[in-house]
């Protein structure tokens, strides 16, 4: 008997299954490759890449909160050149599609990094991280103004020969507006959600725990917000959605798929359990078997 079919097609990318690690929670794959072969994953998504190496924020950069964590890594990464020369060639040998998360402080930086990554032939797709502060626009994030976002996506799209996903920030009044702007700019798909902005104060020092004061909230605590945003977005866009935010089990992943996601990403759960992604894949398969679901198309968006 043939088992259930977990494969998904995502803006032309054919993935073995819908489960990918979320950017920033999986480095460039090397660490988790010690725990399982990366080709078990739908794709590998790497840490945000900027043009130059970035040290990131001072420490502490992470803190635990109820059902989640805060991070203020600050886009620490070895920079475009090192990624092109050291990380992507290594990943190319792992027999798994690679999605490169791209960040920048100005449109030109996004464009340059995206073009170089796309042209290298080493990535299957690009994911634009638009939560970054727009230096030229006084530090407001690229992801909160529909006009700014549409323009950024359009500029990057012009130089990007591979599928372009836009990763939306949830810290907005209406996610649909931003989703439509990204689609209008030419995005091939959307990833949501990035982290909610949060803070934790240490009662002993009477100061914020994170050196950066504020940080991004992720983990199970944000799941209801993430599911809602995927659901709302799926109702208005035509491009595929990659859902994430608090996924830790196969049931969580199925919930996002029922809300309209074509695939999912898993962030914080990798820290709780390095085998989170393979476990989630197995649990999705079990759920499909138990419920007689042959293909994920049968349940995608069924709660809409």
């Amino acid at each position, binding site marked *: 008997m043939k088992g259930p079919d977990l494969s998904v097609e995502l803006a032309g990318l054919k993935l073995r299954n819908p489960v990918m690690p979320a950017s*920033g*929670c*999986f*480095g460039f794959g*090397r*660490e*988790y490759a*010690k725990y399982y072969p990366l080709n078990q994953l739908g794709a590998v998504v790497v*840490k945000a890449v900027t043009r130059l*190496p970035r*040290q*990131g924020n001072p*420490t*502490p*950069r*992470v*803190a*635990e909160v*109820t*059902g*989640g*964590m805060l*991070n203020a*890594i600050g886009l*620490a*990464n*070895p920079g475009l050149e*090192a990624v092109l020369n050291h990380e992507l060639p290594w990943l190319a040998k792992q027999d798994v599609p690679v999605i490169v998360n791209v960040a920048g402080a100005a449109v030109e930086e996004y464009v340059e990094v995206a073009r170089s990554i796309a042209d290298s032939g080493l990535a299957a797709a690009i994911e634009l991280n638009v939560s970054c502060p727009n230096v030229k626009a006084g530090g407001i994030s690229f992801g909160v103004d529909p006009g700014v976002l549409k323009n950024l996506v359009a500029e990057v799209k012009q130089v990007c020969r591979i599928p372009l996903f836009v990763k939306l920030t949830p810290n907005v009044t209406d996610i649909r507006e931003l989703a439509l702007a990204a689609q209008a700019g030419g995005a091939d798909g959307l990833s949501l959600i990035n982290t909610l902005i949060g803070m934790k104060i240490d009662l002993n020092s009477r100061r914020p725990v994170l050196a950066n004061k504020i940080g991004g909230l992720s*983990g*199970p605590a944000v799941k209801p917000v993430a599911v809602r945003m995927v659901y709302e977005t799926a109702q208005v866009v035509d491009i595929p959605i990659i859902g994430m935010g608090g996924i*830790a089990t196969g049931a969580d992943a199925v919930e996002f798929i029922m809300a309209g996601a074509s695939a999912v990403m898993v962030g*914080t*759960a*990798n*820290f*709780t*359990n*390095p085998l989170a992604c393979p476990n989630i894949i197995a649990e999705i398969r079990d759920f499909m078997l138990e419920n007689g679901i042959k293909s994920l198309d049968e349940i995608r968006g069924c709660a809409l």
Partner: protein
Amino acid sequence: MLLKIKENNQIAQNVWEITLAGQFPYESVQPGQFIMVRIGRGSEHVLRRPISIAAVTEERLTIVLRVVGEGTKWLSKQSVGEQLDVLGPLGRGFPLPPSNAKVLVVGGGIGSPPLYLLSSKLQALTPDLDLVLGFRTKSECFWTDRFSQLGNLVITTDDGSAGRAGNVLDAVEGMLQSGHKWDYVYACGPQPMLRALQQYFSETAVQGYVSLEERMACGVGACYGCVCRTKDDAFSKRICADGPVFDWNEVIL
């Protein structure tokens, strides 16, 4: 990995010693390495806690922890027979010195546990191991008997309630003045203590290794949460994967 709790005892004020058994690569453990322990059984706690390996035998792992927050409190309350979910051994431990080197080991408070495993390895290599362990006060001292079997142990307490009054640096200075000489210093403890040692020996040829601490998320090098500043100011080192032990010439404390 699921390890079973064989013992869980309070050994000093707020300090617990937990012994674990089960499938674990005991032989491969280097002194200074740590494990990441999962807290709770639901999804309230998403981050594991880093705890140093304090002692290891062919089939047992011992950790020593101070209760400071929710996670360590939970650990202190787990019963014998229950299982802990651990990852490890993680990180890079202390490089061992050549045979017959003169070695000083310095621990501050809850920084001492990994130095026990280190010292038990050093004992075979170095004839005359000097050990200085600092605590705040007598009620917080632990494992002094065990450590004293491994070398010449000096205990200090801030309030003089046990051993020598003062901090570890006072003791180290005193020993130097009374003629001790070392080729290697190994230290783990609060950052100010490590910094003081680093500075104190900065103009000397003494080779030093310090074990650092930072809040961690992944514990395996994937999240860039736990970086420390290095002197060459290149892309910062991750304490969990590139450390926790660093050559003291390499890091800015």
